[in-house]
């Protein structure tokens, strides 16, 4: 069963990739879709198996590499965290696979596209099922590769190729940190196996080692290095510049890789390493602050973008920020909860946007849209559902997961928790605003496209709509169904103080798990098992249930205000938006130009790297090493030869050659005499 949940994508990739020509496009589509649907089904079975029976297990497949104490194996770690990720990945991937049949119908390279999607799915599954850091790294780089291939899928487009390279390279910058983190882990813990690292963590709570000349707290160093990898993959502020550019790829790719799954790998990594992060308050603070700033900055950029996919991309970045600051306040369950709900509604939004783009003959600029809602009503409704979930409107999925994150941040009662809370509220307001800006610009008002495009507007075929319906179902119900097991109730880490807590009353309904009691199965303690570790004093999710009433209402109020503002600016008072943009020009330009991060990096890094390369190549190699090295020797010997005057004609290098040999023979003889003392 475990094998069937992970490996069908690999086989589908190999078949579609190697024998694409023989089985044709339809064959490739069938094989890849069948593979991932089978995997999705098996993941659901495993979900019930592992979560309800609490039957976490590790399956060893083969040895990867052994070098002294460095032992790594291929294996599948099947615990609660993994199986949730398995379900999310396989279900969203299955939807995207099926959707792609319709979306890519006119593309000449359908088979290759499907093969890449399956390759991605497999790599992502290897990442989440890994039982050691190295296999995780294998999946990590594998998804990076698939992302690179898919961003640059339309490889005649120069912009797509550049975006693909940029994505790979920026991710590599993060991987630099992750790789060092793995080395540091091995250096400190003597193993890269999760079990061995986590079980030793408490003993290393105060351990320190010399890193780059400073005596530093080991766990903090490791955590921050791992976080650097997570920042690259999950597009956190500083290493985020690749994500908007990645929208050059086909839209199903944006939905699967750059919204639902790959970009959440960083979140997964940090949650997986909760047993380590719990012992490093400093690392948690850093994660919290970076996450909060990302959530805020990305939201501000989203306000002014006009490319429909880029708006959603910045929204993704912003939501990832939420997940990270949730981790920063030890609310791991909430982070994964949001990861799951976000996967559904963001994939829905992207695929919905894809449906719009498909209808608009590949137009992505919202300024050239408008008035579409009557023409593509199903897409319109689905986009509404996605936006409601994103904005955190009650009873939609995002409402539950976003609120618990904000409440946990508040409940942390630390300065960074509070910062994250307020930045998160501000981001929630902006999120709601730009989501409705998107809806209003795209679907309402007068059509701004030319007549030809408008005549051609059509609802997408059912092969594209039905996956959207599945995702929409998730976007509506995932929150309300999974709220309790993910974040409500007690945590095993705080069982000692459970007696005290029951007096509070609200928690009394979620009893401590004792055997097969139905209610007990469905609570946080039992649900997460050993897969997440929270120190009792850090259990903010528990505290989150006791925050003041206004804190619980604040995100909703912010969201509603944001929606209202969007209606004001883009529906009721058209033209006001331009006036505001003009009035606050510096802010508008800062937002519109994405805070000039790309320009900054270009000036500081990109240009200089090439310049230094040129300096080394010309001044270093040719003008210094060669000039004083071989060429110098050659011309020197030539001069001497010239003076001797005997070899007037002939070959330059023959002279040089003879001279050098003579010289060396002499030096050798002298040195030999000296050394041996003859």
């Amino acid at each position: 069963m475990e094998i069937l949940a992970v490996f069908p994508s690999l086989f589908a990739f190999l078949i579609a990739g190697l024998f694409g020509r023989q089985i044709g496009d339809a064959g490739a589509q069938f094989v890849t879709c069948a593979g991932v649907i089978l995997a999705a089904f098996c993941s659901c079975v495993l979900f019930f198996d592992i979560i309800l029976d609490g039957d976490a297990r590790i399956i060893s497949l083969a040895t990867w590499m052994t070098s002294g104490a460095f032992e790594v194996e291929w294996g599948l770690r099947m615990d609660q965290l993994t199986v949730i990720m398995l379900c999310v990945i396989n279900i969203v991937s299955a939807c995207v696979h099926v959707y792609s049949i319709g979306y890519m119908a006119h593309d000449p390279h359908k088979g290759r596209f499907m093969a890449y999607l399956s390759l991605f799915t497999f790599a992502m599954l290897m990442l989440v099922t890994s039982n050691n850091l190295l296999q995780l790294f294998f999946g990590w780089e594998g998804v990076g590769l698939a992302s690179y291939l898919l961003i640059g899928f339309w490889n005649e487009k120069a912009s797509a190729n550049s975006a693909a390279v940029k994505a790979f390279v920026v991710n590599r910058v993060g991987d630099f940190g992750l790789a060092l983190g793995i080395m540091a882990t091995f250096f400190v813990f003597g193993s890269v196996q999760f079990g061995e690292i986590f079980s030793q963590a408490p003993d290393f709570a105060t351990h320190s080692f010399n890193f780059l000349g400073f005596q530093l707290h080991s766990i903090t160093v490791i955590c921050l290095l791992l976080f650097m990898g997570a920042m690259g993959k999950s597009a956190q502020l500083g290493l985020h510049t690749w994500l908007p550019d990645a929208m050059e790829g086909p839209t199903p790719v944006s939905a699967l890789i750059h919204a639902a799954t790959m970009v959440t790998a960083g979140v997964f990594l940090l949650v997986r390493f909760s047993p380590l992060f719990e012992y490093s308050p400093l690392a948690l603070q850093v994660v919290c602050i970076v996450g909060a700033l990302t959530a805020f900055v990305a939201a501000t950029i989203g306000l002014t973008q006009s490319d429909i996919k880029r708006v959603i991309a910045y929204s993704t970045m912003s939501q990832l920020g939420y997940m990270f600051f949730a981790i920063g306040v030890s609310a791991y369950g909430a982070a994964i909860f949001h990861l799951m709900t976000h996967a559904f509604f963001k994939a829905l939004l992207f695929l919905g946007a894809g449906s719009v783009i498909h209808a608009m003959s590949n137009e992505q600029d919202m300024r050239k849209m408008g008035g579409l809602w009557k023409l593509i009503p199903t897409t319109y409704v689905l986009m509404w559902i996605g936006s409601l979930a994103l904005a955190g409107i009650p009873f939609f999925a995002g409402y539950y997961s976003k609120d618990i994150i904000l409440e946990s941040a508040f409940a942390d009662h630390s300065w960074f928790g509070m910062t994250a809370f307020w930045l998160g509220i501000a981001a929630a307001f902006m999120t709601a605003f730009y989501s409705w800006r998107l809806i209003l610009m795209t679907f309402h008002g007068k059509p701004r496209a030319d007549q030809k495009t408008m005549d051609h507007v059509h609802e997408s075929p059912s092969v594209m709509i039905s996956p959207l319906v599945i995702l929409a179902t998730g976007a509506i119900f995932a929150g309300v169904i999974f709220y309790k097991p993910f974040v409500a109730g007690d945590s095993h880490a705080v069982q000692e103080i459970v007696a005290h807590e029951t007096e509070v009353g609200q928690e009394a309904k979620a009893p401590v798990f004792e055997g097969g009691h139905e209610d007990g199965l469905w609570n946080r303690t039992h649900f997460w098992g050993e897969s997440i570790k929270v120190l009792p004093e850090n259990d903010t999710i528990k505290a989150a249930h006791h925050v003041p009433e206004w804190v619980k209402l604040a995100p909703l109020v912010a969201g509603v205000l944001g929606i209202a503002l969007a209606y004001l600016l883009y529906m009721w008072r058209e033209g006001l938006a331009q006036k505001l943009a003009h009035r606050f020009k510096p802010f508008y330009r800062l937002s519109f130009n994405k805070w000039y991060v790309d320009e900054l990096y270009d000036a500081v890094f990109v240009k200089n790297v090439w310049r230094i390369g040129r300096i080394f190549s010309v001044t270093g190699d040719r003008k210094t090493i060669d000039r004083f090295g071989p060429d110098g020797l050659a011309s020197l010997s030539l001069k001497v030869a010239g003076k001797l005057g005997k070899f007037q004609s002939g070959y330059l290098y023959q002279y040089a050659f003879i001279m050098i040999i003579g010289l060396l023979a002499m030096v050798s003889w002298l040195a030999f005499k000296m050394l041996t003392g003859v």
Partner: protein
Amino acid sequence: MIDFPILSLMTALPLAGAFFIFFIRGSEEIVARNARYTALYTSIFTFALALYMLARFDGGLADFQFSERYNWFPSLGISYHMGVDGISVFFVALSAFLTPLCILASWESIKSRVKEYMIAFLVLETMMIGTFCALDAVLFYVFFEAVLIPMFIIIGVWGGARRVYSSFKFFLYTLLGSVLMLLALLTLYFQTGTTDIPTLIENPVARDLQMWLWLAFFASFAVKMPMWPVHTWLPDAHVEAPTAGSVILAGVLLKMGGYGFLRFSLPMLPEASAYFSEMVYWLSVIAIIYASLVALVQEDMKKLIAYSSVAHMGFVTLGIFTATTQGIQGGIFQMISHGVISAALFLVVGVVYDRLHTREISRYGGLVKNMPKFATIFMILMLGSVGLPGTSGFVGEFLTLIGAFKANNMIAFLATSGVILGAIYMLVLYKRVVFGAQINKDAAKMPDLNPREIAIFIPLVVLVIFLGIFPNFVLDRMAPSVAKLQAQYNAGLYTEQGLESTDHPEVLINE
């Protein structure tokens, strides 16, 4: 064990083939054809022997296997001593693996003096295998230096426009090193009275002498690697060499330096190796970063890959001199992996060079349209060079870095930045050659790989992935020999430590 002298047979066989080719007579065309086939069959048979050797090699032993020993100059104590351990066995196999591919790759591109070309290649193979099998210092030296002669001729005769400058530069650099090495070997001989490598390893010389000898060996091996700053011969040699020449140069000849460090510097001169290790680390890190940056701005494909070789070899020297298990194993693995990947990358360049006769990157573009098979193979090899997990490139790089992190994490930190730069230059190269618009009409008309070319690439690609997923095939077999090497190294340090102050106590703690 094998009851016939397989190592001598493998060494002598190509030479015999060359001898046979030498006597082929007839019209030019017939000579060329016969020479090609003779060379191919000889090298394939040698490779078959290498596979047999690999199959019979006992991976659980640390000792030299298939040993042969005959007195050569009994009065001087010099003998003909051959044998392989878990380190050298893979280099022998690599040499025997690449030679038939090279001959196939030259099948159509070499049109003049085919007979001489094939002779040169077979002689080259003899010298390569001999180098890795030799267990007597004099024998080693003979093979080690004689390798240069056929290579020198291959570049000088069948090379490009500036071949004379390049081959001269190549010779000059390597000669300088080899003279010093000869001195060192002679000194060793006068000190110990033997040239037998295993015996020399067991009887280390005094610390002061070690320092001088180490530097002399270093001069030779560093040039061969090549390490910064004695690397400038490599790009020129590669650019001018014919494709197959580049393949052997990158695939095998660069490994001789690393092999030399493992066979001589580390076990024979442990004190000096420990003393100079810090210097080697820094030179390696400079090589990694410097060469990657230089590779970034190259407009010539072969130069770019040549500089990438310098960077990749930086990981090797770094790993070896950490003297940790992971560092040494990683260094060896990196050499084997690079031997496959860079050899294949030069073949990739050869494919397009044969069609368009230019190595300039800007002349290509959009090849994925007309050469999809080529694009796929190039992609896999590019990823191997970038060190993507799942390819052999990752294993070597990562193990050396693990070792380096133990020895000095500042060095590991700097060296790891090489993985970012490595990704940039390879991806940009690939993008410019394979993706994008088809600017050049001639490039757009180039045909895809033919069956002969596919046959060349398939084993290389398979090996890159196989070694990436099951690296233990190599790591397990070399483990006992590496452990023995470490033991010798550490024993050398201990004996010296008693007399000297503790210069490097930290190098003793490595497992």
